[in-house]
């Protein structure tokens, strides 16, 4: 049975692979790519939220890492150095592309509102894969409206599984600052979520009132 490597042992192996890659050993660099590709994908995905762009940007990140590897002095862990390159590349990409929030034409139906609210308030997982896809779609709408920093922190922590310590290293922030920002970001997403739900409910109610009025008028006429 294989025992999962501890973080320290992995870092030590990375150090050796980096030394070899710095001396022109391409298979050593390929091994580094293999070891870190999943985390880089998570990081890029957490920041960009556009699945179609993730692979391209991830390739670009490893290309940059390969080119700058000779200048890497190994004072920090390879993973930290690589994740910092990743974050910078993502921000460059967002700046260059001027990515705009997605615009959704349709709003939530009453059924969708109550389904999402049920999941969040009653701690009930969505029943079917279709429900799950629908709920994800609704969540994406809410995420798109959040400030960039809140969205990235929440997604990297809750969805992509980065620890507070990792986030502090990658984003050059104090650990305590990350915790406080995360806690406030949670309050903001929930505030936005509640407002969105209330808005959707009031839209449904006014639609119903309108329907009632129309049927009353047609009944009288």
């Amino acid at each position: 049975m294989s025992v999962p490597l501890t973080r320290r042992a992995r870092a030590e192996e990375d150090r050796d692979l980096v030394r070899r890659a710095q001396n022109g050993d391409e298979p050593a660099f390929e091994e580094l790519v293999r070891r870190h590709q999943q985390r880089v994908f998570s990081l890029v995905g957490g920041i960009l939220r556009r699945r179609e762009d993730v692979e391209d940007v991830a390739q670009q990140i490893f290309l940059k890492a390969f080119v700058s590897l000779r200048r890497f002095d190994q004072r920090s862990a390879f993973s930290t150095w690589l994740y910092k390159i990743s974050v910078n590349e993502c921000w460059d990409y967002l700046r260059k592309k001027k990515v705009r929030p997605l615009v959704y034409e349709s709003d939530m139906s009453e059924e969708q509102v109550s389904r999402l609210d049920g999941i969040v308030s009653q701690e009930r997982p969505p029943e079917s894969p279709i429900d799950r896809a629908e709920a994800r779609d609704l969540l994406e709408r809410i995420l798109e409206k959040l400030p960039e920093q809140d969205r990235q922190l929440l997604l990297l922590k809750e969805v992509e599984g980065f620890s507070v310590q990792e986030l502090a290293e990658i984003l050059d922030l104090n650990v305590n600052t990350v915790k406080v920002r995360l806690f406030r970001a949670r309050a903001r997403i929930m505030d936005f979520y509640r407002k969105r739900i209330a808005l959707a409910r009031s839209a449904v109610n006014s639609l119903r009132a309108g329907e009632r009025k129309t049927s009353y008028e047609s009944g009288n006429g």
Partner: protein
Amino acid sequence: MNLETDSGACSAYEARLEDYLSGQLSGADSSEVAEHLKACGACSAALEEARASVRLLALAERSPDPGPGFARIVMVRIRTELEASREKGLWQPFVSLAWRFAATATLGLVLLVTYGVFASHERLARPAAPSMQSAEARDFFTTDADRVPANRDDVLIMVAEDNDGNR
């Protein structure tokens, strides 16, 4: 002083509530936060909202897997880019020489054309005053129909010239 913040929680407890939420607090710290939560409605409400945010975010989809061939693709791209930059480096002296030659030739052509245009303009703009030399030339080599004979010999010469011309 525990001021309320954006999250609604006491400012001194925000970071600890984040730890409490993810179960990162040790026994003593955890008990201390739990005691505070019993007494503080604002922090309890903020923690409830934070818990709901975990449930909400659990719906989000994780980033796609790179797939087994990703590392290979990266290495192929690295090799291609290196090859391209090496080739660029090999041809660079020739390319820059060619560019310099092209630039010099273009400059020469522009100068020639400019000179030609200016010269023709100057020629057209100059007044057509006959010079001394051209007047003399006309005397010797052209026939002037309005020439007035000065004496009898001149008349004979002009008649002879006319006869020669008509013949």
